[in-house]
C-alpha cells in the first residue's frame, strides 16, 4: 500500500510526518535540527529516500543537511555558497544601490532524474547547483548577471529566489521566481535567462509593461502540462498558457487575491488551490476564517473549502512554500501555518484535519508519495 511522507520545515526545526495511504493516522518524527530555522526540505524524485534540508541560523549561518534513509538519519553536506564573479549591486528598499550578499537558502529543488543534482534558490537572489549530492555548490551566474539585476529590489522578506520549477517535458527548461523581481525562464539549463512577466500588473509599478519588479510569491505547474503556469502574486492570482510568455488574471471571485502559496491537483491540471490572505499589511485570513479556495476551472471560479478548518478567530498565515499535494487517488492536499498547524485533506480539499497542531511556525511543507 502506498505511503505518504510529509516534510515540514519550521522556524525551530524539521519534522517528518508519515502515514499509510489512508492518511488518517500519522507518525511524527522531530524536531530534527531543533532550534534552527529550516526553510525547506525536499526529496529527490529519482530516489525518494534522498532528502535535502536547508538549515540556517542568524548566529551560525547556512548549513545543508542530507539524508539517505528518508529522514531517519542526516549528515551535513557542503554549505559554501559563493557567488561566481563580481557581485555588483541591486537596489535596496530605499532605492539606493546595495551590495549583493548571501543570506540563506530558501528553496532546494532536486533534479527530476539524478539524486545528486540539486538546485538551490538563495537570498540575495541567485541560483546554485550541486552535482555531487550537496558536497559542493556552484552558482549558475547567468541569472544574477541578467541586465536587469541591478534594478532588482527585495520584498519584505528579503530578496529571495523562492521558486524553482523544472520542466519534465523539456530538459533544460526551468522557471524561477524572485521577490520582488519576478519570474524568469531558462531554456538552456540555467545558462541564460529572460524575464517572463508580461501581463503582470503591480501596484506601485506605473509602467504596465515593466520587465521586472513584480513581487511573485509562488508559481506552480502540473507535470503533465508544464506550459501552463499558475502564479500567486503579491496581489492577484495569475495564469499563463504559454510557458510564461504572457499572463492573465484569474482571481475571479476570491474574497481577496493576496496570498502566498498556490498548487495544482495531482491528477486534474485545471484544479488549483490558494489560501487567500486579507492583505499585505494584515497577514491573516479574512474574517478570521481559514479557507482554502479551490478552482476546478483553472481559475476565475473559486469555491471555499472549510470543513475541518477553523472558521472563527483564526489569524495565522500560510507561507509560500507551505502547501503541497500527494499523488494518491483521491489527491491529498497539505498546508502548514505560522501557528504551527499542518492540515491535511485526503479528499482533494473537501475535508481537512490537522496532522499536528502545535509545531513552531511552519515555513515549508513538501509531500512525498511512496510505494
Amino acid at each position, binding site marked *: 500500500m502506498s505511503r505518504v511522507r510529509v516534510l515540514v520545515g519550521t522556524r525551530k526545526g524539521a519534522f517528518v510526518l508519515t502515514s499509510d495511504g489512508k492518511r488518517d493516522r500519522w507518525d511524527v518524527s522531530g524536531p530534527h535540527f531543533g532550534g534552527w530555522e529550516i526553510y525547506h526540505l525536499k526529496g529527490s524524485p529519482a530516489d525518494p529516500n534522498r532528502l535535502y534540508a536547508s538549515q540556517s*541560523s542568524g548566529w*551560525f*549561518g547556512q*548549513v545543508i543537511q542530507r539524508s539517505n534513509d528518508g529522514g531517519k538519519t542526516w549528515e*551535513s553536506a557542503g*554549505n559554501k555558497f*559563493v557567488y561566481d564573479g563580481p557581485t555588483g549591486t541591486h537596489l535596496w528598499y530605499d532605492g539606493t544601490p546595495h551590495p549583493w550578499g548571501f543570506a540563506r537558502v530558501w528553496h532546494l529543488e532536486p533534479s527530476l532524474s539524478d539524486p545528486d543534482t540539486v538546485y538551490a534558490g538563495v537570498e540575495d537572489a541567485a541560483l546554485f547547483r550541486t552535482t555531487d549530492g550537496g558536497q559542493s555548490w556552484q552558482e549558475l551566474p547567468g541569472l544574477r548577471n541578467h541586465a536587469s539585476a541591478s534594478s532588482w529590489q527585495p520584498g519584505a522578506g528579503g530578496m529571495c529566489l523562492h521558486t524553482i520549477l523544472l520542466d519534465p517535458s523539456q530538459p533544460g527548461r526551468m522557471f524561477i521566481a524572485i521577490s520582488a523581481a519576478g519570474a524568469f525562464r531558462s531554456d538552456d539549463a540555467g545558462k541564460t535567462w529572460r524575464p517572463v512577466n508580461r501581463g503582470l500588473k503591480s501596484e506601485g509599478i506605473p509602467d504596465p509593461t515593466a520587465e521586472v519588479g513584480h513581487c511573485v510569491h509562488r508559481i506552480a505547474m502540473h507535470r503533465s502540462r508544464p506550459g501552463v503556469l499558475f502564479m500567486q502574486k503579491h496581489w492577484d492570482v495569475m495564469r499563463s498558457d504559454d510557458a510564461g510568455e504572457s499572463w492573465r488574471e484569474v482571481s475571479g471571485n476570491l474574497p481577496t487575491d493576496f496570498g502566498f502559496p498556490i498548487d495544482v491537483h495531482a491528477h486534474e491540471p485545471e484544479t488549483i488551490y490558494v489560501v487567500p490572505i486579507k492583505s499585505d499589511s494584515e497577514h491573516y485570513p479574512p474574517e478570521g476564517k481559514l479557507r482554502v479556495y479551490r478552482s476546478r476551472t483553472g481559475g476565475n471560479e473559486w469555491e471555499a473549502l472549510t470543513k475541518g478548518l477553523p472558521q472563527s478567530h483564526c489569524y495565522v498565515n500560510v507561507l509560500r512554500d507551505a502547501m503541497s499535494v500527494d499523488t494518491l487517488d483521491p489527491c491529498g492536499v497539505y498546508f502548514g501555518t505560522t501557528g504551527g498547524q499542518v492540515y491535511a485533506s485526503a479528499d482533494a480539499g473537501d475535508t481537512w484535519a490537522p496532522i499536528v497542531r502545535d509545531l513552531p511556525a511552519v515555513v515549508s511543507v513538501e509531500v512525498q508519495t511512496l510505494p
Partner: protein
Amino acid sequence: MIRVVLPAHLRTLARVDGEVKVAVEGPVTLRAVLDALEAGYPMLRGTIRDHVTLQRRPFLRFFACEQDLSLEPPDTPLPDAVVAGAEPFLVVGAMAGG
C-alpha cells in the same frame, strides 16, 4: 591539546559532547585554533567564520581567560593557560533573538 568550548547548536552539528580538543602545530593563535577546529570538524566551516573572508560571524564572540578576544587580529597568540590546556578557548553565541 587546545580545549575549545562550542555553543550548544555547534556541538550538535559537530556531533560532540562537552569540550572539543584540537592539536595546533606552531604558534597557538586565534586563526590556528579555528583552522584546526575546522580541519577536525569540517561541518563547522562557515558557521563560525565566513568561508571566504574568514571573518568572525557577527553574532559570535571569542573568549579565553576572561578576556574578550573577538576583535583581536587573527594572529593574536592565545593566553598561556589556553596553550597549556589549563583554560578553554570559548566560542560564544550572542544571547539574543528568539
